[in-house]
């Protein structure tokens, strides 16, 4: 119990005094996860729309695979990415291992199936509604996808949020491919793992509260930006 209080007070001082290490780690966490979210959304959202509107032979199989990939253990993804990016591996020439870029790559792989799956569910519903209308209007495939993505943006935002939540709290994969290097690839989750490992529970708790606070804050910010909860907008 006293650990918890110590953690709270330590967290309070860390934040209030804008501890430079904390700020650096937080910014890096945000940078890695938001970049991964952006890239993953650019891949996953149009993919979800395409799967919703286009009929092709392997469609059902693709959707099933996508849903299954959601269950990929993140640390296994980390391991695979590590093997590929290591100098001894096929993509070693790029020297990406133990850099934030490697962490972004791992996180993108982890959250793309999640975002695509969730987005696809809602887009499919929307498409079944729009289907007759858009076909009657002689729309191209591209126009249909754009209409779904734009009109379905609230659901897409939810999918992206889910992706963000998964990524920001992830520790296994980014520990493996990032190496938790101080001032280079250390982020909130890996720092928490480190402090816990050193027996510094109060510090770890402090970092943990910051992580929770940050995740909630980003959540609220994205909602506000999307205007989705404001004045009667559907």
């Amino acid at each position, binding site marked *: 119990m006293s650990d918890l209080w110590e953690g709270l007070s330590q967290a309070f001082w860390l934040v209030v005094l804008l501890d430079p290490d904390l700020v650096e780690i937080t*910014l890096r966490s945000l940078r890695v996860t938001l970049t991964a979210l952006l890239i993953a959304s650019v891949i996953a959202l149009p993919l979800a729309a395409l799967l919703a509107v286009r009929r092709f032979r392997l469609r059902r199989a693709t959707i099933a695979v996508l849903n299954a990939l959601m269950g990929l253990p993140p640390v296994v993804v980390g391991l695979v990415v590590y093997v590929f990016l*290591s*100098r*001894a591996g096929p993509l070693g020439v790029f020297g990406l291992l133990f850099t934030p870029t490697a962490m972004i790559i791992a996180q993108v792989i982890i959250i793309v199936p999640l975002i695509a799956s969730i987005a696809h569910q809602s887009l499919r519903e929307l498409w079944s509604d729009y289907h007759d209308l858009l076909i009657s209007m002689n729309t191209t495939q591209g126009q249909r996808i754009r209409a779904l993505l734009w009109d379905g943006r609230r659901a897409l935002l939810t999918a992206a949020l889910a992706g963000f939540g998964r990524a920001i709290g992830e520790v296994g994969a980014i520990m493996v491919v990032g190496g938790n290097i101080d001032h*280079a690839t250390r982020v909130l989750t890996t720092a928490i793992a480190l402090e816990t*490992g*050193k027996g*510094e529970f109060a510090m770890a708790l402090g970092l943990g509260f910051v992580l929770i606070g940050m995740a909630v804050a980003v959540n609220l910010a994205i909602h506000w930006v999307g205007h989705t909860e404001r004045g009667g907008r559907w």
Partner: protein
Amino acid sequence: MKQVLFGAVAAAVLATASIAEDMKMAVTTSFHNSGLAEILLPEIKKDLDLDVQLLVVGTGQAIRLGEAGDVDAILVHSKKAEERFLAGGNGTHRREIMYNDFVFIGPKSDGAGVAGAETAVDALQKVASAEALFVSRGDDSGTHKKELSLWKAAGLDAEGFGSWYRAVGAGMGAALNTASGMGAYIMADRASWLNFGNKGDLALLFSGDPVLFNQYAYLPVNPEKHPHAKNDLAMKLEGWLVSDKAKGLINGYTINGETLFVFNAKQ
């Protein structure tokens, strides 16, 4: 909406640009837990304008990172593994830098009577015959290899131990945590012990036997095998590590008034 997200990301990216040279070095958890790196790295940055990025892993993984060429140099403490590393053409040479020692930690109640042991081997034999809970690193690290060699010297085979012997497969800090949680015996390097924050009911019970001394060596990764390895920077760092300044910092580093490392590089 997408634009705002993009803008936020761009701002965060721009805020963290860096310009100094950097290299990657794999070091052991024991070294990192001592806290010595916090003293040395800023001085290295000041004197050489060099960012040394530390990957803190067990000796086994450090060796493998060096073999794969994923780092530019390694700092480990396991002579046999180092010699095998060099024999495989993975490193240019080994340079001894400093040594510290291992100590035996255990519950204050000391049921196995380790505190009264004459030698390190004697202490381990006491633990084995009492079948007292013992936590081992179990991660192929320098510390782990040392521990295994001591069991061997005591005429005991670690493979055949009963459930009192717990191999956790983790770094020094995590292993100490586990020992603290279980009230078990454990062999740790002095530095990690002094820096450990969750001592609980544990205490330092035995030390001083010369066989427990632990030599750290620096091995640059071989640029002939890995042309991209930053050998020039690795050599620069080595030069600094064996300098008088480093000697002063290393010998002068204390925790609670106790020195941890003894500088012994041949200059």
